[in-house]
């Protein structure tokens, strides 16, 4: 798969103190944050992004990826014990996990969740290791016109899948593109929309914008009902645990096909840009229900159902990084934030990642694989205690989150202007959440905007005044344009057909 020299470098990089600390911090933090309903992995990644500035690329990315996958697993703890999914990807878990807790099988449910998550995560990491390098070679065929179209493809697909509403998704993506034009123009050096503010000369910084859009709205949501902020979930529920942690060999044998099928579904869903852990989890759950010989158990604490959800949502994490590392198209909002982290570390998605920067990239990928294994071990050890973190009321948690938001935004350029940017984006993010406008496409527009603009303008120069002929003379461009049109048209056609069928049925 890769040269021996790279393998040696990967082994050397992996077993350094920095990487081991990054792995441990990522797994522990991800697990704890995931277990807290309302705090998501995306938010944790955005908050920790400034801390990774001073770190090397490998430990920084390993920590963020470990948080992503562990948060998904941590979310199952509160879903199983409190019937409150820690992350949206754990909603299906609550359906099977909580009845098991009620039946006195809470510990058994946690055991299944941890092992299934590890299985899904490890298989998706292997898929990432196997699929990403050959796929990255496709990027060698890319020049400026293709870069432009790939950026647009990323936006259209996120726009159609990130929320329930395609117009709003596309609108937010376009707003992100417009916001990316603030600051000095890369090509002509002209200052645009800076309003005399020095802080805007280099454009809107990604990190304060991400912190603002993903973290501050959580704080403001708690401010809606300040009287309820001092309540704690764990104290309101009975979280006593009993039962066994591990199943019998026969039961594990029964779960193996479910876990395998869910891993494949989850990884595939992860590769589809915009489809996050919840879709992977629900699709795996549905498939397991159809395949099961014990359909009557579903909804009443089915071990197959629980295994399917947890394997499916964790398998999404590895899958989401396949289009991200190869074509700069993130598979989920958390992956979109990781794209920002990659760029900050000077790692540009594409073939170069797997050739010139192979040692760093493979260290990150193997680190992700190890993070998934560590997550399982750590989860089995601490899961029954991790639920205690939900005893921390929001009245304590939210001021701490806000302090971290502020210092995180400030840390990028040691500039108070970035703190104000985070506050501004926080208010915008809160309103967007209330008005059902998805934040992920906006961030993606902001990240991809510069690539799209440079690609578009340079391709116009390369086209010598005839862009249409130029674009249609390039086979990769034609394929990308067809994919973009199909991506936009598919949901419209599907919704039109659904309406037609409904009216025919009436």
């Amino acid at each position: 798969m890769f040269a021996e020299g790279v393998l040696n470098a990967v082994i050397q990089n992996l077993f350094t103190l920095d990487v081991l600390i990054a792995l441990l911090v990522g797994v522990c933090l991800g697990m704890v944050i995931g277990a807290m309903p309302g705090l998501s992995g995306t938010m944790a990644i955005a908050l920790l992004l400034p801390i990774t500035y001073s770190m090397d690329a490998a430990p920084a990315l390993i920590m963020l990826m470990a948080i992503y996958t562990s948060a998904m697993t941590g979310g199952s703890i509160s879903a199983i014990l409190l019937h409150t999914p820690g992350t949206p990807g754990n909603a299906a878990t609550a359906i099977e996990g909580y009845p098991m807790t009620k039946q006195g099988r809470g510990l058994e449910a946690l055991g299944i969740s941890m092992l299934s998550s590890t299985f899904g995560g490890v298989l998706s990491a292997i898929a990432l290791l196997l699929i990403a390098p050959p796929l990255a070679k496709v990027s060698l065929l890319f020049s400026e016109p293709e870069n432009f179209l790939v950026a647009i493809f990323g936006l259209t697909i996120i726009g159609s899948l990130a929320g329930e509403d395609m117009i709003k998704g596309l609108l937010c993506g376009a707003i992100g593109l417009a916001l990316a034009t603030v600051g000095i123009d890369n090509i002509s050096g002209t200052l645009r929309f800076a309003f005399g503010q020095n802080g805007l000369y280099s454009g809107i910084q990604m990190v304060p914008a991400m912190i603002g859009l993903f973290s501050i709205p959580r704080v403001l949501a708690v401010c809606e009902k300040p009287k309820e902020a001092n309540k704690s979930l764990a104290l309101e529920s009975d979280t006593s645990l009993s039962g066994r942690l591990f199943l019998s060999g026969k039961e594990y044998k029964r779960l193996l096909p479910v876990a395998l099928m869910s891993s494949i579904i989850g990884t595939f869903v992860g590769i589809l840009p915009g489809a996050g852990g919840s879709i992977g989890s629900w699709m795996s759950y549905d498939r397991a229900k159809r395949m099961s010989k014990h359909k009557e158990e579903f909804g009443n604490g089915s071990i197959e159902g629980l295994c399917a959800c947890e394997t499916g949502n964790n398998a999404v994490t590895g899958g989401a990084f396949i289009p991200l590392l190869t074509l700069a198209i993130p598979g989920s909002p958390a992956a979109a934030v990781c794209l920002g982290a990659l760029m900050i570390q000077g790692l540009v998605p594409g073939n170069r990642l797997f050739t010139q920067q192979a040692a760093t990239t493979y260290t990150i990928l193997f680190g992700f694989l190890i993070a998934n294994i560590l997550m399982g071990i750590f989860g089995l050890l601490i899961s029954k205690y991790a639920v205690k973190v939900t005893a921390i009321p929001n009245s304590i948690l939210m001021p701490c989150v806000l302090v971290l938001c502020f210092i995180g935004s400030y840390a990028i350029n040691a500039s108070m202007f970035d703190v104000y940017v985070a506050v501004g984006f926080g208010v915008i993010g809160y309103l967007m959440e209330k008005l059902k406008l998805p934040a992920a496409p906006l961030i993606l527009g902001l990240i991809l905007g510069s690539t799209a603009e440079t690609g578009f303008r340079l391709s116009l120069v390369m086209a010598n005044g005839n862009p249409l002929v130029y674009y249609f003379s390039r086979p990769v461009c034609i394929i990308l344009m067809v994919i973009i049109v199909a991506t936009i048209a598919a949901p419209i056609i599907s919704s039109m057909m659904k309406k037609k069928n409904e009216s025919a049925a009436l």
Partner: protein
Amino acid sequence: MRLKNIHADVFIGILLDIACVYFYMLAGKFRASESAMWPRACLIIVALLSTMLIFRGIRLTQQAAKNNGAVLTLPFQELPGVAGGVVMMILYALLMNLSGFFIATAIFMPVGMFMLGQRRWVVMLSVTVVMELFVYFLFVVQLKLRMP
């Protein structure tokens, strides 16, 4: 028709359309005219999608009026609490700028916790001290950050 019965998408669309017109005109004043092409293209797309949002919002408002259904409205009910939160954030940022991070945080954290219903002073003070120490060791000692 009362304002609260109009779908929020109508207001979002109008606001964005106005912003697009303003920024489109502003782009005309750029030193190099080719620098305005891409921002203007983005603004036209935003304006088109916003206009679609307005029309859809109007249709949904009419449908809701016909069926006595509810529409997505601007979040006015939650406004007092959220406005309080925003004011606290701005004051914290300003105080941070004036007095420095550690003093501002020492004031903001207990006040913030108190406003959210926390009444145990020992908890409030210990969380504040732990947070200050955490930030100091991570950002000042480790990352050598020049604090505000």
